[in-house]
């Protein structure tokens, strides 16, 4: 595991990729998360709404992005985690997540690392841009 305390600002502290997203993965996430919005699992509904196909739940991709925490720390040391959803993630997209150290800071008597989190597809298109704060 990378040592956040000794990492330099700008350093990539975690990077990993997912398999291409399948319709099956969307159905499993719908059931696991309780988000039954049909636009992610029912192609008839998606087409009726003017979309060419179902597409990934944003929160599925944020879930992928959140896996960084076990690569650099532990979930109990995560203080904040936020993201903007910049573009729709399509079926077939393989997501690469990257966590980069922005800086460390002292807050509430602890040292915290502020990280930039990016999720891109195989073409390099940015899908999610987030931040996390982890206590060191």
């Amino acid at each position, binding site marked *: 595991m990378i040592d956040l305390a000794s990492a330099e600002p700008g350093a990539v502290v975690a990077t990993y990729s997912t398999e291409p997203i399948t319709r099956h993965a969307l159905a499993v996430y719908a059931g696991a998360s309780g988000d039954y919005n049909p636009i992610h699992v029912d192609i008839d*509904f998606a087409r009726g709404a003017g979309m060419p196909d179902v597409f990934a739940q944003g929160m599925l991709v944020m879930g992928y992005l959140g896996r960084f925490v076990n690569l650099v720390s532990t979930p109990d040391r995560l203080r904040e985690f936020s993201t903007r959803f910049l573009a729709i993630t399509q079926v077939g997209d393989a997501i690469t997540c990257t966590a980069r150290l922005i800086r460390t800071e002292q807050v509430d008597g602890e040292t915290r690392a502020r990280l930039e989190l990016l999720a891109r597809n195989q073409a390099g298109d940015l899908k999610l841009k987030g931040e996390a704060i982890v206590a060191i």
Partner: protein
Amino acid sequence: MIDRALIGTVFPVVTVEVSPSRIALFARSIGDDNPIYHDEAAARRAGYRGIPVPPTYPFALQMDRPDPWELIRILNVKLENMLHAEQRFVYRAPIVAGDRVALTEQVAEIYEKKNGALVFCRCHAEGRLADGTLAVELDRTLVVRRDP
């Protein structure tokens, strides 16, 4: 048009029990095979009082409301015209399997962009453990395309 008078609208409080099988399924669905999400002994060895929830799991707790689309109805928009624009979690205390989490949520902000073509609605939620401890704060921002 979404009425700004809806700011402050409070949703009914809902209490959700966190189950270990649901955590395991959720972790699998996001491809996280870390043993702390699947094995109580591993979680305890790692210092947790039970199987912890993955970072984005509190959003799934919110979906366990009896009517998860209440917001859509209140805003009077079509589900298919709505997208998730932003999501933020602030973690105050760990949530583990077996906890009962009471969720409160209210409409915090409504604003427009692109001359009103896009309307944003941010809802702020808090999850508290049975003893009243604030465990997590959630802000979900939805964006609605207004019908042309």
